[in-house]
């Protein structure tokens, strides 16, 4: 059985894995089940989840978007800086959000154009923009973190930012609501729209897609824009949880999101993967990272664990994929 089938298939199996994590935590660290930890896990899952839903569009095309963490940081910095400079006016906040969205669309379009017109590998393109964006972030903020003022009653803009990250509706925190909304919209797009149908076709066979009338370049650019846009949204939400923005915000999140993709059974070669896989991947990534933090695993070593999980999952996928390929060797064909 492939990891893809195992993780990407029935939720039954996924629940077993999540239950295992819970079981380990129950024994090892009771703090896991406290309210404050639960909400921090939920926040992390929501942020990873929104990024994962966006990156799913790109991965379905056989690409990667390694810039999601830096895109989140930059968009949060743009919003915070413009809002602050405007003296926390409502218009300033709106301008900031529009500017962040515009910036993320521009980055997504750039990625898409590089991948389609220039035929560059998405891995290299998005790795480059990751470094560029992390370089740009301190220029936007002037090099230090921007903290939203905490006296939120007095100012509607600050109040609004605060509510994005901290308000609850029916006792559900706003980040979770954003995540749920993203899952519903992205899931609907992939499962029920012509664009979704085209994405799966494109990821599976781009040449054949072009021959059935798919506009390959336009659809590819759109996928990269979705990824950047959702990264920007998660960046803004993340910064409003802690009421601060700076260049180290969401740093390294692309690693966790990549882990979510792979554990979620999304085929990195393109064409296969579901929104539920991305959701499961985000749950897994959030829980594993939280578990390691609670168990006081040093942060560098957390990266090592993430890397190992990715490696093992890819390894099992590659192995079972190869085995699956070996099962059905066609009989020697008659001469053409």
């Amino acid at each position: 059985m492939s990891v893809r089938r195992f993780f990407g298939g029935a939720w039954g199996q996924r629940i077993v894995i999540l239950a295992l994590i819970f079981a380990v935590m129950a024994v090892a660290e009771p703090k896991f089940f406290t309210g404050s930890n639960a909400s921090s896990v939920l926040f992390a899952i929501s942020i990873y989840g929104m990024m994962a839903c966006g990156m799913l569009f790109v991965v379905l095309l056989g690409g990667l978007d390694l810039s999601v963490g830096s895109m989140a940081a930059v968009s949060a910095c743009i919003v915070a800086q413009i809002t602050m400079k405007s003296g926390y006016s409502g218009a300033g906040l709106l301008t900031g959000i529009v500017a962040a969205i515009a910036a993320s669309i521009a980055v997504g379009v750039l990625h898409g154009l590089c991948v389609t017109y220039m035929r560059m590998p998405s891995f290299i393109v998005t790795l480059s923009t990751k470094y560029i964006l992390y370089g740009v972030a301190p220029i936007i903020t002037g090099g230090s973190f921007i903290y939203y003022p905490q006296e939120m009653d007095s100012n509607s803009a600050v109040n609004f930012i605060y509510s994005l990250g901290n308000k609850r509706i029916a006792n559900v925190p706003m980040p979770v609501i954003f995540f749920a909304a993203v899952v519903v919209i992205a899931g609907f797009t992939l499962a029920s729209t012509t664009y979704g149908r085209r994405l799966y076709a494109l990821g599976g066979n781009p040449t054949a897609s072009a021959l059935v009338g798919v506009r390959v370049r336009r659809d590819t650019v759109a996928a990269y824009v979705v990824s950047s846009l959702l990264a920007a949204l998660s960046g803004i939400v993340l910064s409003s949880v802690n009421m601060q923005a700076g260049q180290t915000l969401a740093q390294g999140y692309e690693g966790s999101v990549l882990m979510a993709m792979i554990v979620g059974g999304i085929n990195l070669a393109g064409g296969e993967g579901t929104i539920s896989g991305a959701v499961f991947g985000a749950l897994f990534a959030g829980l594993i990272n939280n578990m390691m933090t609670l168990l006081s695993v040093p942060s560098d070593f957390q990266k090592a664990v993430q890397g190992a999980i990715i490696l093992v999952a890819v390894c099992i996928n590659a192995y079972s994929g190869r085995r699956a390929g070996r099962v059905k060797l066609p009989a020697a064909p008659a001469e053409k």
Partner: protein
Amino acid sequence: MRPTLKKPERTPDGGAERTVTFEDRAGKSLLRTEGVYKQFNGVTVLRDVALDVRYGEVHALMGENGAGKSTIIKIITGVYEKDAGRIMIDGEPVEINDSHDARRAGISVIYQELSLVPALTVAENIFLGQEPGRYGVTGRSEMRERVSALIDRYGFRIDPDAVVDSLGMSQRQMVEILKALSTDAKLVIMDEPTSSLSTAESERLFETIDLLRQKGVGILYVSHRLEEVYRLSDRLTVMRGGEVVGVLDHDEIVPKTVTTMMIGREIRDANARRGYKIYEDNVLEVSHLRYGKLLRDVSFKAYGGEILGIGGLVGSGRTELVKCIYGALRRSGGDVTYRGAPVSKSIGRNIRAGFGFVPEDRRVEGLFPALSIGRNITVASHDKLSRVSVMNKGAEQRWAEEAIKNYDIRPRDRGYRAANLSGGNQQKVVLGRWLAREPDVLLLDEPTVGVDVGVRAELYEYVRFLASRGSIIIMVSSDLFELTHIADRILVMHGGVFFEEFTGAAATQAAVLLAASGQHTDEGVALI
């Protein structure tokens, strides 16, 4: 017993290897097969095949698609196992079970897709994987000298230090040949070596082949092109339906004789469509179409109700022609109009205007292997199955299920993964994708390659039915039977232009075959 082969030896004085040529053996038997049989899934594809190739001769092998040429070559080179028969090298029976055995026996194949590394030099490519030197350090000077010696011995004109990337196709083939010779090949097999060469490059390849012949190397040369077979070969073996129908000496190689042997007695058509109706208002007109060097000036009209066959050899521009019409290739000149209006360059727009295209390479260009049968069928019809970009899933399911039923796709399960289907069913899926739309213009490129006989008949039935409803069908094919029996009119391409048109009784397989080689039919050739 296997003939022992001497490894190239180095002389103490600096590396030139011992010269191995076969001039002294010229005319002696090199390769013989006797009574070779082969079956695939109960179908006999080779029956009692006897080949005889001598040292110092170019021995051509010709036959229609499916005659068994590739199969016998794959048996000689150890790709397939034979069911019965013997292979003899130098008069001694040998067992060839894999490519190593073949190489040890002195047999080497020059593949159509060349296996060179573009970034390396000629010398490096020749010694790839068997570089001289020690401890992983390549002995460059030694390698150069050995390659120079090899080049000199055969009198080739090529620079051992040239990077392969900078070479033309014929020179690359020269490198492939040198690579074969470096392992002391005495029999070089070439399968359609000129299919990707220009005329000038072909001529250079022929010179290379002449040099090999002079050195006593035996050459088994598979080709569809009569004129080059005549130019090159000392003898010609013709195959048909898995059997050898005859061996001709150079002087006996006459187009009339060869085509007759290849085709056999023509069975006059029992089931061709007679009296089909032309829909004059449904017309596709191509005028002065050009595409690079491949299409020079192509003009024709195709009408609704008619199946227009496009014949010609691989590389004659047939595929490019249909792709230019469809919008998959950007034409360099000329006009395509449909019902009087110019045809768009956008494939999507053409599809919505009623076009459909079944590409030649099903796996690369047609099928979505990871998608289900249903998605494979509906992928070209999102326009009819959605509203404001939202799929109507009920309509989508009905559409897929209807096509699966109408075109008898097995299994009848729209969720079944297309990759796991048989070749015939995959082709039904790709064709069904378009048929379900009832296209007004359906372009088919080799629609039945790799499809067994039973499914073929079904596909023809579907296509004929569509034509009878008034659609334009343009069908590119290499299969002479398919052209002469399914198409109502045949245009044969040669050298980037339409060479000849056939209709009715004139459309015989022999005439089409001759036209594809660039020869007009004279009186009396067509029939035995």
